[in-house]
């Protein structure tokens, strides 16, 4: 019987040795680490679709080399993040890492990528640390930083003349960075954040805090929530009767992808983000048409971010003619190029974060319609990044 046990053990151990050896050098392997399950699954799909759309538009080749993919479902679980990145790097031997939605997982990706010198493009996660303390010459971001959309909204609300504002968000890194960015802009212009309310992430029992807001009677409220929390907050805010009396403002994701669920409660809300509906530019229209044709759904901000990640990869690869060992030239090429994105052209800051226009949007029906530019060519300060 012990022989059977040992044989099983040996067989199973043999399974561990990598079955696939390194691919031939003509193809570039792109490792997609995105959520395929859980609440963020739709976002992961959008990013992947956007990325692949660009590659298809280039004929499946970037920098003269064909692109192939390896995928891992990160399940938005930071506990498995390092394991999953290692699967892509050590088992699948990818050349480029793309991912992800959840900031905690992306932070693990950024760390491993930095330590191994792997090229890494972040197509969503907005944590400051990724282009801050964990920045690297091989790390790029095609999305935004939490600070950016919040700072822009701070400027907008200061310009509207509000003096006293209450902020409310989840107590976690993204929430802290959002409120921090907002506060920086708002208080610079003489406004005051009278109360910073928060609750543990991802708790959605907002009632006690809504009562607090009503008791404090500020001029306006600034908030950051995303996903299920955003849906609930907007609905609860309206249900508490506050929508009519204390205007609510938010950073982008409050109304991105949530309008269907929020219904009439979201009507008229103003938010800031780096993308909007109804931009009307030729570039955006072409992108939206192509995406809708290929995937039968309208694209969203996540699809744009994925699309732009592929653009950035293409720019770099074209500059080094497909030779990924030339990391310095790769980075230099992307740093000095203006990326022609559906959101509008943007460049990269020193810490490789997009320097872009932040739009002011209003909810009209089921769309976040752009009504103006909140902040032109806003750059994330990249605090903590030592080049």
């Amino acid at each position, binding site marked *: *019987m*012990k022989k*059977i*046990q*040992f044989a099983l*053990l*040996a067989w*199973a*151990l043999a*399974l*561990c*040795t*990598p079955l696939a050896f390194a691919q031939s050098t003509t193809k570039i392997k792109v490792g997609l680490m995105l959520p*395929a*399950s859980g609440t963020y*699954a739709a976002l992961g799909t959008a990013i992947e679709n956007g990325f692949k759309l660009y590659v298809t538009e280039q004929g499946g080749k970037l920098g003269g080399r064909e692109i192939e993919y390896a*995928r891992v*479902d990160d399940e938005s*679980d*930071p*506990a498995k*993040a*390092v*394991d999953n990145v*290692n*699967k892509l790097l*050590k*088992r699948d031997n990818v050349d480029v890492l793309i991912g992800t939605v959840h*900031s*905690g997982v992306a*932070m*693990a990706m950024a*760390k491993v990528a930095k*330590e191994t010198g792997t090229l890494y493009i972040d197509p969503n996660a907005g*944590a400051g640390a990724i282009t801050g303390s*964990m920045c690297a010459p091989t790390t790029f971001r095609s999305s935004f930083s939490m600070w950016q959309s919040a700072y822009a909204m701070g400027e907008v609300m200061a310009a509207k003349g509000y003096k006293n504002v209450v902020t409310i968000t989840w*107590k*976690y*890194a993204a929430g802290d960075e959002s409120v921090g960015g907002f506060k920086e802009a708002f208080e610079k212009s003489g406004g005051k954040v009278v109360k910073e309310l928060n609750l*543990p*992430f991802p708790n959605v029992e907002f009632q006690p805090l809504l009562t607090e807001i009503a008791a404090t009677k500020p001029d306006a409220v600034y908030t950051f929530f995303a996903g299920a929390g955003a849906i609930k907050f907007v609905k609860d805010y309206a249900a508490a009767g506050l929508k009519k009396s204390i205007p609510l403002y938010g950073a982008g994701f409050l109304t991105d992808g949530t309008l269907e669920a929020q219904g009439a409660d979201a009507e008229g809300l103003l938010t800031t983000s780096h993308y909007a509906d109804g931009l009307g530019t030729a570039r955006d229209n072409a992108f939206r048409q192509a995406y809708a044709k290929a995937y039968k759904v309208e694209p969203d901000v996540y699809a744009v971010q994925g699309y732009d990640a592929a653009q950035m990869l293409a720019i770099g690869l074209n500059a080094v003619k497909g030779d990924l060992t030339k990391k310095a030239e790769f980075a230099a090429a992307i740093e000095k190029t203006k990326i022609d994105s559906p959101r509008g052209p943007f460049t990269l800051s020193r810490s490789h974060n997009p320097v872009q226009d932040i739009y002011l949007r209003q909810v009209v029906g089921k769309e976040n319609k752009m009504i103006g530019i909140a902040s032109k060519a806003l750059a994330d300060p990249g605090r903590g990044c030592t080049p």
Partner: protein
Amino acid sequence: MDRSAALFVALVFIALALVPLVAGPFGIDLVTKIMIYAIYALSLELLVGSTGLVCFGQAAFFGIGAYADVLLSPHSGAPSLLWILPACVLCAAGAALLIGALALRTKGVYFIMVTLAFAQMAYYIAHDTPLGGGSDGIYLSAKPVLGQWLHLDKPVVLHDFTLTCQAAVFIFLALMLRSRFGRALAGIRVNEQRMRATGFSTYPYKLAAFVISGAIAGLAGFLFAVKDGFVNPELLGWHLSAAVLIMVLLGGLGHLRGALLGAFTFVLLQEFFQSETIFGAFAKHWHLGFGLSIIAIVAFVPRGLVGVPGQLRERLLGRAARSAKKLPDDFF
């Protein structure tokens, strides 16, 4: 002592030692993870298999060991293994003392729920308070070293060090379970009331077992933090507590080698169901197959894999074979 069991365990350790020679970097990583989980499972085997205390909060001690490493490590320069390893183990043991003192006032079903609740408390401390660094987790700035040659940031060195720890824990537990202390624990597991009736004060023994178990789980957590270089609150989450219970049951309760088998099989089972080569696009629903497997295993193989040879023997050779087998004095 069962000779075939001892031989099996020895062979396992030799095979694990040879892994760096045959496997690539991913394989070494995977095996190191399995060994860390095996140490984690051994800690729970002491509680559940040997003492009969079903603890549903073991992840708390695992996570505390991991977080202790990250929080105690200096920001620059590698800490010495000589102080940081004992420090992390002590943190976990301390937490086990506090939690055990309260939880062991309850019994049976209550104990299960109370240990779960306390682990959740630790989870929320890591998740919500500044102490824990929040839901995104914290980076480990430098991995420990010992002298010139033992650098734990090198995968092969970490693999060998983990193997040494695993062997040490195994031998320690095997010796402990043979001692008077171990016999007392076995007595508590079989019938606590009877033990108390004979004048044995069972509470200190249970608490001691709880603390030792917590310390070993903390060791496993420490190694995990060193391996990943990154900790987050999910390490204290109840899914990890459930996972180690599954490992121990899967391998076989009451046998130390069951913990090894269970950790190994558990990880392989997960890898199997997550594999896109086998399941294609359905792989993202791997929890379904995995959940069904757990139900099936608990329903049909409740004595675990260790009991499989015995069950097969019974089926094939009938009752006579069972009576011929020695009574289970082997917990090895």
